[in-house]
């Protein structure tokens, strides 16, 4: 068992004993290329790029203009998947969506992520998970999911079908932009600026462990839908 002070002292001692200084700057091996890059770093149309990337990963994306369309999409998806239970985040945007009533009418029970006695029971049984996302990243087709009150991590993870609704204003261009948000959040607000969980979720869950053949929907949802609104 190591005591913190001793442990760190040992490490400090070892970092300082060395006359050795690594000298192999790696620049010789990966020289920049002359040919024009194939990924457009400017990303002219972020929503279009997001949808394109998501589709390439086997996800489904759609641009919609109003809440009515979102409701329709979720309803028809629930019918198509013969869903019995949908679990959703407890956030104002999804209250406003007003899909709970129509879903219940269609025979789909709706569980809201609040005051749950056993969340495993609910999220583990649900056929569909529904959430918003803090950001979306155009370059990679990624959703940036934050944990927090009402925002269950399991909602986006346990049901086989997962739907996220994201306003187009929330689309960032690149991965560094998204990470920078939290770096800046932490710099400004300390722990309050960085939620206990942030997940960059990119397309359907998958595994290639069996002979490198793609298996979709390994442990997380294999059926991923993102609606870009606006």
């Amino acid at each position, binding site marked *: 068992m*190591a005591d*913190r002070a001793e*442990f*760190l*002292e040992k*490490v*400090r001692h*070892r970092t*300082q004993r*060395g006359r*050795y200084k690594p000298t*192999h700057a*790696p620049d010789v*091996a*990966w020289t*920049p*290329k*002359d*040919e024009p*890059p194939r*990924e457009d770093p400017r990303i002219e149309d972020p929503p279009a790029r997001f949808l394109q990337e998501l589709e390439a990963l086997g996800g489904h994306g759609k641009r919609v203009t109003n809440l009515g369309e979102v409701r329709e999409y979720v309803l028809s998806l629930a019918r198509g998947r013969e869903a019995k239970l949908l679990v959703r985040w407890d956030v104002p945007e999804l209250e406003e969506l007003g899909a709970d009533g129509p879903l219940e009418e269609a025979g789909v029970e709706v569980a809201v*992520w609040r005051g749950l006695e056993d*969340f*495993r029971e609910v*999220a583990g049984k649900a056929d569909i998970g529904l959430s918003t996302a803090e950001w979306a990243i155009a370059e*990679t087709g*990624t959703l940036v999911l934050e*944990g927090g*009150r*009402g925002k*269950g*991590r*399991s909602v986006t*993870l*346990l049901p086989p079908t997962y739907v996220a609704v994201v306003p187009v204003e929330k689309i960032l261009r690149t*991965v560094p932009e998204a*990470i*920078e948000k939290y*770096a800046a959040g932490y710099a400004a607000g300390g722990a309050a600026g*960085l*939620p*206990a*969980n*942030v*997940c*960059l*979720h*990119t397309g359907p*869950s*998958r*595994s*290639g*462990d*069996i002979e*490198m*053949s793609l*298996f979709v929907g*390994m*442990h*997380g949802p294999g059926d991923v839908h993102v609606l870009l609104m606006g």
Partner: protein
Amino acid sequence: METRKPTRRRETEDRRPEGLVSPVEGFNERARRAVRDGDLHDSVELFTNKSVAGRNAVLNALPEAPGLRERAYHIKQETMANLDRYLGQMADAVEGRGGNVFFADTGEDVVRYIGDLARRKGAKVLTKSKSMATEEIELNRRLEEDYADLDLEIVETDLGEWIAQLAGDTPSHIVGPILHMNRRRIADVLSGVAGEELPPDVEALGSFARRRLREKFLTADIGITGANFGVAETGTIATVTNEGNGRLVTSVPPVHVVVMGIEKLVPRFEDLSVFVRLLARSGTGQKLTVYTNFVTGPRAPGEIDGAEEFHLILMDNGRSELLGTEFEEALYCIRCGACLNVCPVYRQTGGHAYGSTYSGPIGAVITPLLKGGKEAKDLPHASSLCGACWEACPVGIPLHDLLLKLRNKQVREGVAGKAQGLAFKGFENTMKNPALYKISGKAGRLARKPLAKAGAKDGIPKTLPGPLGAWTNGRDLPELAPKPFRELWKEGI
């Protein structure tokens, strides 16, 4: 057919305190067998070729890749130079978020900590997300043996790791743990667990695994993960998985334990943007791994899921010995597996020949350093010094150079590693035969360009392996070895 794997660890009586008991000794013998195993060869070739092609494509598409690589190297250099400070900062940050921090000198310390925690919690089921650090210390076996009275069920949840666990096998690649098994073998293993015959079909096997592991995710008392990166500034742990098991293991069980090698630190949160991109692109040929998950401490007030209790174990287990030495750069590794995929030796022998958790070039470097030079004395010779590993490495670790230094060290210390010349007849023939060493597609074409020039100059065979040149368009390869490859090879290196 099943891969001929090294004899099981249990045979070794000597349980070294680090938990490193697998039979590293005997590389040459195992390699000789592996080289003749046709099925193994096909599996390794499929995996490495696909990985290399995917990785070249996404890295070539990222214009800033060379810059990122350089930044990665310098960030790691800075981290190691101030590792004590960053470790202290990380510990403070985690405690500030209500997490627990434990400093472990050895693998033994890690086993004790987790075993005692399991006892305190009355835990029965432990789910694990793939972690090389826990493989290194053989955590599962030791918990089961040393805490036999707790009757723990420890479940690997990465599909490949789970199958390896069920088969009593060890991972043969950092990224593709069971690449050495074909689907018939996998169907055999899973059929045994299912109690019925499962067809050798990816859909059927994957669905069965999903159902079975889902029960475990939902009932686990403790979730154990490694860390791909730990952020000193914020106390954040980054894990990347495509299957989602990393996120499940950290979200569902009430307790989350992280076993992190002390070299996994990066100083700042923004550094993650360098590393998660390099790791995904180099390791699996993706722009981003499906679940790139950042966990900072236990769940916040008001949250319903996420672990209530968070434990970070910072594990040394021999790592700090390398600090400030000529081998320090070996600690910069982000375990992407790229060097394995391009290594002419790994491509012929697969991972089990190395007899260590870490195989390929990085394994040949890190195993003797962590385990002691004697036992692993042949490993520094398991290399052709062609430099493909260095080229492939997204952090720019000069692996071939470290291997040479290790050989020098052996000479200084009077440890005689076996020359591999004789052990590798079959391998050598392959190296000489261009048709056997073709890498498909663009990588292959690019590879031949600079090497052809080098070959004309130094007499290096034109068929040198690896996708060299995919990043070095129009450049000659730097002089890597003091002698041309073929001469070294003749001398048995």
